[in-house]
């Protein structure tokens, strides 16, 4: 509105209906993308297999009561006190594994995360869900690997030895690994699973299996920097 004119929402001449609709649709797109910090709409997403999504969503809603904390990892699902009550935008992220190289007794899983959320949010909690089909006690080694841009390779962030007692889901706290990953350029977490020989592959046979591994992460927008005056 020009200076001295009326408030634009009060009594301004209504634009032509067609133009107004197009403008509102464009505005809706623009504001949603801006709030999600997306430069453009994500193109051609690849939805997870039909069987795996409901299982993952159910697990995501359930409170993980037996999250195994790996050595050097924090059990820090609590909300940091400095952020409590500040009304910062929260995110829940569900990431399904992509298969990496595997051998008869080991398998690698890759979890990729987008820069949009990673650039503006901090990880509060992250849990890896793994399903074991073997009925008896099973010794499993879980290694968390992170990209090392300097050596164009991966480095091991942690190693956990689990003694799986029965078939079913096992959870592992990967919050610390994901937190350090979010500060890097390449946002890929690699999980290496290793079982003793003659135990078979530690992974389900295919992606469409409802027991396919996934990571659930809770993140929160970073606290805006405050300007201090001295």
């Amino acid at each position, binding site marked *: 509105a020009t200076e001295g004119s009326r408030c634009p929402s009060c009594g301004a001449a209504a634009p032509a209906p067609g133009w107004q609709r197009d403008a*509102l649709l464009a505005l*809706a797109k623009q504001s949603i993308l801006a709030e999600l910090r997306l430069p453009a709409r994500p193109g051609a997403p690849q939805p997870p297999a039909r069987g795996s999504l409901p299982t993952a969503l159910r697990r995501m809603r359930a409170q993980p009561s037996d999250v195994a904390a790996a050595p050097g990892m924090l059990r820090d699902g609590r909300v940091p006190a400095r952020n409590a009550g500040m009304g910062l935008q929260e995110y829940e992220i569900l990431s399904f594994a992509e298969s990496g190289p595997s051998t008869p007794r080991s398998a690698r899983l890759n979890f990729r995360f987008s820069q949009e959320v990673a650039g503006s949010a901090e990880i509060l909690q992250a849990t890896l869900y793994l399903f074991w089909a073997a009925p008896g006690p099973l010794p499993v080694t879980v290694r968390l690997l992170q990209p090392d841009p300097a050596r164009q390779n991966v480095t091991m962030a942690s190693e956990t030895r689990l003694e799986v007692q029965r078939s079913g889901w096992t959870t592992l706290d990967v919050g610390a690994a994901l937190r350090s990953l979010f500060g890097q350029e390449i946002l890929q977490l690699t999980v290496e699973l290793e079982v003793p020989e003659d135990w078979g592959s530690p992974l389900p046979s295919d992606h469409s299996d409802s027991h396919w591994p996934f990571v659930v992460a809770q993140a929160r927008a970073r606290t805006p920097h405050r300007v201090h005056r001295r």
Partner: protein
Amino acid sequence: GVDCGGDSRMCCRQEFFVDFKEIGWEDWIIQPEGYHMNYCAGLCPLHLAGAPGLASSFHTAVLNRVKAASAAAAAGSCCVPTQRRPLSLLYYDRDSNIVKTDIPDMIVDSCGCT
């Protein structure tokens, strides 16, 4: 808050629904099916103008007197959102991860005059 309808030109909430299918976004936004992009429109004559957040008090009385004395103040009264709520979205990001977030203050629930 008043919803727009009929011939009234007073400040009201105009409903506007953006169907994600219509704009070709249904493939990456899982839920909801659309966005209620309501907005505020209409006139705010002097008798409808109030000061949000101020209860009836000496200060309100003074403000009303100032408004009554000044035509410019009346013209500056705006029809604006007085109640808003977040938009909950479940969507696929660029890596086909599923993200759930609440974008604050995206849906206008009611409008009023400043």
